[in-house]
């Protein structure tokens, strides 16, 4: 009993009751209220409304291993929902439909950019070697699948689900998710390869300023000079590199959820991934247009790899000069010299 008193005294030292305990008398209740426990249980109790005003989310402690479960309440979920269901379909819809409209408008007013007929027509020059074409198409095929399966997360339930029904749509989306998750890796590989191989030809220089000032030949009849890549191509290169790296970084965070960030971080990551994604798709639509339908002769560069010398001369005059200067005999230029009869 004496030991207990001492222990009690030690406990009470900080509370101002030490004197009472030392005298050996029982400690009276701190306050005489109707409550038998002697204290007002509400005096210091946490209140939800007050906590939510002071903090942006309610974090506690749990006795299970899942640390995420310790987050009791995060009202930001409703804000993320507002982004995903309120803003994102509009951002995506306007960006992509707006770009398609602009491209249709350009096609129907200005038409295809035609190939000139000069004395160099029919002569071929190698523009992209097999490896360059491989890395381009690796990235491009992955991008198209990633774009379609990504758009499915936003528009699938609005456009596709009413047509094919919930079961078929869910099965398709399941495969779409696997495709999105796994094709992300070859996409990132292609992206890195393109960055390494093409970065030296995509450093902006003074020629690009003149190219942009002349509207890239789109607006007038003048054809501004360009090296291997003109300012427009350099722009698409840097859009792909910067956009692709952002998509990769946010994508990896979502492939390994909660490994590097908390719930609000995951919400922000998804928002960045989605917004960059739809803008990226809009930009690539323009790239696809100008590389195929928009310009006669342009597709060959990524198709066979060899372009018409007249086309190269017109769009990349300084690059043609560079290639000519590199090899006087002109191994880059096929067809210009007679094929030996063997």
């Amino acid at each position, binding site marked *: 009993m004496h030991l207990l008193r001492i222990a009690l005294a030690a406990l009470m030292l900080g509370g101002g009751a030490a004197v009472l305990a030392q005298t050996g008398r029982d400690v009276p209740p701190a306050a005489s209220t109707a409550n038998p426990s002697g204290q007002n249980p509400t005096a210091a109790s*946490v209140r*939800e*409304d007050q906590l939510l005003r002071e903090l942006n989310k309610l974090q506690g402690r749990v006795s*299970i291993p899942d640390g995420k479960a310790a987050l009791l309440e995060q009202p930001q979920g409703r804000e993320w929902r507002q982004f995903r269901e309120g803003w994102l379909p509009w951002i995506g819809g306007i960006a992509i439909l707006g770009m398609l409209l602009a491209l249709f408008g350009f096609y129907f007013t200005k038409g295809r950019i035609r190939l000139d007929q000069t004395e160099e027509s029919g002569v071929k020059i190698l523009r992209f070697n097999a490896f360059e074409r491989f890395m381009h198409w690796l990235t491009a095929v992955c991008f198209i699948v990633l774009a379609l399966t990504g758009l499915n997360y936003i528009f699938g339930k609005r456009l596709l689900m009413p047509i094919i029904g919930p079961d078929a749509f869910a099965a398709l989306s399941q495969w779409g*998710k696997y495709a999105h*998750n796994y094709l992300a890796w070859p996409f990132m590989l292609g992206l890195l390869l393109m960055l390494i191989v093409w970065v030296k030809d995509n450093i902006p220089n003074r020629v690009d300023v003149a190219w942009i000032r002349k509207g890239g030949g789109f607006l007038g009849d003048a054809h501004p000079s360009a090296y291997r890549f003109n300012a427009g191509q350099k722009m698409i290169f840097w859009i792909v590199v910067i956009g692709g790296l952002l998509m990769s970084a946010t994508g990896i965070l979502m492939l390994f959820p909660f490994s590097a960030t908390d719930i609000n971080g995951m919400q922000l990551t998804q928002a960045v991934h989605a917004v960059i994604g739809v803008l990226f798709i809009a930009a690539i639509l323009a790239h696809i247009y100008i590389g195929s339908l928009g310009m006669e002769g342009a597709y060959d560069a990524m198709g066979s790899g060899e372009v018409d010398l007249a086309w190269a001369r017109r769009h990349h005059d300084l690059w043609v000069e560079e290639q000519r200067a590199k090899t006087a005999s002109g191994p880059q230029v096929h067809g210009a010299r007679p094929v030996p009869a063997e």
Partner: protein
Amino acid sequence: MARMKFLCDADRCIECNACVTACKNEHEVPWGINRRRVVTLNDGKPSERSISMACMHCTDAPCAAVCPVNCFFTTADAVVLHSKDLCIGCGYCFYACPFGAPQYPRVGNFGSRGKMDKCTYCAGGPEADLTTAEYEKYGSNRLAEGKLPLCAEMCSTKALLAGDGEIIAQIYKERVVKRGYGSGAWGWKTAYRETVAI
């Protein structure tokens, strides 16, 4: 039809975790998945309170809104359920849920989390009531048997209340009036856009 809700009286919850255990046992929930958990705020301080939390079966549920395959549905009792046949395990419901209710069998594996699992309010899933298929995917269906969720039914201090929103709000109100204090109906403002006015 009733508007089913949960209400946790934090001034009564003693963090015994019986609700968590009852839920896991009743529905044979796999290891790693917690449909219900008890969160302790201000642990060890005089203001400490514990709240048992699971899916709140929100009005205009955020999980249902963000789901890319629309796998959620609301029953006539206002219970929010989902179809594991449609779920693709994207994880969006967890980002949107204010209460961290959705659970996934796997974490990593390139985000292929598996089919989402969450509190069903002991009301099963889209399958026919009380079938084996329903039990295997969603656990037991006590509501179909005329019983309330087991977590609330076996709460030792009756801190966790389940039932029609108006009735459990009335019970809570009477308690607060009688004892003279109450830390509020946790999550109600966020889940139902209304709270219990005392």
